[in-house]
């Protein structure tokens, strides 16, 4: 008898990673905070007026870059409903869309900032994107980190180097150490040391920081997050009108049925310069997030197959215009 070749498989033993449709670039047209809202619709119009030429520029740059000129560009807009709740979707969203339309901008997707922390609805169940990203942080090791000790952590903080060592003696009658400066790991001559607060806790409630949620937002737009192998928070079209309560709004709403996919190979955010420190913090966080190997491979394969060369490091796939 010839030997029989047996194959045996177990579904629970295999890892399956869903793929996500991708645009070439996701352009964030703005980010609405309470104070912007309070400043009235003129502030919004002003924002969109500044953004409009940059969107056109990005579109034409990608059209040149993509064979056949068929660039997929999607636009999005983020509303802060996490740090402060104001107005209602029914009142606010039409106002935003109107202000954008005045400058010939179409907002393809509208997202809620609180969904970057956690989101729950009947359709997708619950997903805590912020926790998911927190578990994927891999601290940038200072030289002489050999794994023998757990990474030095200040709970709830993340930095780009090593902090000043403690000066107090560790034992009675021991020596105190002189002060030493903190140091950036990848310094060029001199340090630019950055220490970012990721969250704070008052009692049982954890509040994620604005830069941390912004980092989650970037990863979501880059299509690099998965929850149990599934793509979290896929955009949904809204049936009926705008709800009167933020909790009634999906995490990411598709406003334009013809829009290119929400997630993209690269992102561009057009922001006011006052967001510069926040975005430095975002980059500090993102340069320490380990995206799943399999997901990275998926995106790389896809982009290569359509002749787009992507930057290897994900922080290099993110760009900004500060105006």
């Amino acid at each position, binding site marked *: 008898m010839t030997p029989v070749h047996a194959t*045996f498989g177990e579904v629970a033993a295999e890892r399956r990673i869903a793929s996500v449709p991708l645009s070439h670039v996701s352009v964030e047209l703005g980010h609405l905070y309470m104070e912007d809202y309070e400043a009235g619709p003129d502030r919004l119009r002003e924002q969109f007026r500044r953004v409009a030429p940059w969107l056109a520029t990005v579109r034409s740059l990608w059209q040149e870059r993509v064979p056949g000129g068929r660039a997929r560009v999607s636009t999005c807009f983020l509303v802060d409903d996490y740090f402060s709740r104001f107005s209602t979707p029914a009142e606010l969203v039409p106002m935003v869309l109107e202000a954008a339309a005045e400058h010939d901008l179409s907002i393809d997707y509208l997202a809620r900032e609180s969904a970057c922390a956690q989101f729950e609805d009947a359709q997708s169940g619950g997903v805590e994107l912020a926790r998911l990203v927190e578990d994927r942080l891999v601290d940038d*090791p200072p030289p002489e*980190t050999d794994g023998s000790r757990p990474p030095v952590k200040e709970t709830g903080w993340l930095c780009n180097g090593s902090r000043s060592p403690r000066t107090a003696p560790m034992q009675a009658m021991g020596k105190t150490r002189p002060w030493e400066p903190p140091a950036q790991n990848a310094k060029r001559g001199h340090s630019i040391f950055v220490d970012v607060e990721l969250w704070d806790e008052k009692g049982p409630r954890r509040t994620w920081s604005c830069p941390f949620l912004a980092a989650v937002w970037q990863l979501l737009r880059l299509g690099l997050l998965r929850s149990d192998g599934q793509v979290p928070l896929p955009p949904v079209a809204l049936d009926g009108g705008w709800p009167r309560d933020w909790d009634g709004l999906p995490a990411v709403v598709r406003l334009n049925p013809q829009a290119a996919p929400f997630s993209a190979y690269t992102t561009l955010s057009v922001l006011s310069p006052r967001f510069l420190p926040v975005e430095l913090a975002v980059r500090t966080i*993102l340069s320490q997030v380990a995206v799943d190997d399999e997901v990275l491979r998926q995106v790389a394969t896809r982009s290569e197959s359509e002749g787009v060369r992507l930057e290897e490091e994900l922080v290099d796939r993110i760009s900004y215009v500060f105006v």
Partner: protein
Amino acid sequence: MLVMGEVHTGLLQNSGEISESTCRQVLGLMAGETVRVSRRPIVHALSPERLTGVDCALPTASRSRVRGVGTVVSRCAVTGGRVAQGSSYVRVVRSDADRRLPWSHYLARPGVVEVLGKAKAADLAEGFTGDSAPGRPDGACLDLGAVSGRFLDLVQQSTLLDRRAPFKIPRTSLRWVAETGEPSIRFTLHAEQERTLRLTHPGPFTTAVVDLCEDLATHDWLLTSLLVIVERARIGGTPGAQAVARLAPAIDHLMHLWMPAARVEEWLTPFWESLERRPGFTRQWRSLVDRVRDQVAMNTLALLNATADAGRR
């Protein structure tokens, strides 16, 4: 160049074996990532992988200083709801740069440590698994054992475990190096709980090699632990009933776990088979198991005789 890793294996700190669903919770080390479980021929649960950043000297036999930067991959496993492992490894490759690059560069290559400057694979392999390696008193260099030990702690400190393990037993550590080349395998017992493994395999490295090393570590731990329990029983030196009572934990918790090469890919099974010829893991295991069973049988006989005698009187 080469892959190096270290597996720490210990008895799961729980009174009995844990169920598959508990395994899933204990090993859920990362939000949004599932624990992989296979049920045949023995329940084996594997945690999602996590990374640890390192920038340090790599162990070399020549004591020359070789700096490596990158990430260590680690994971935990529970076999048969009873044996817990923390396992870490790195793929060592030459860096194209002569200085450390931004951290995001290394995160784009999970599990890779890039060597800055010159290094020879043989020097690193010998430095990591050579005679002087375990214990390593001098100079700080890449300590995969410490990383694996902490991952094993994560499992053992889980609040889902009752910490009432049926017997006390030390952890074992297996350091391994894998390279591509003419197939060969060398397994070495060092002092107490330290073991090393040198493996040369055909074709490129895949995680199947890690599975093989973890499987070997599991079985070496089983054998080591059964030996300890048999020694503690002092067969012949203590009354039969007492010896049998001391052997009981082995019967209850270890003897059904022997499942060599259960999770080893087919192309790697010849390595297990060669270790079965020399030193013969299964041979020694069988002989110990027979010894335990004989003790129990003899003690049962003695008890039956005693009962019969009492009945006659």
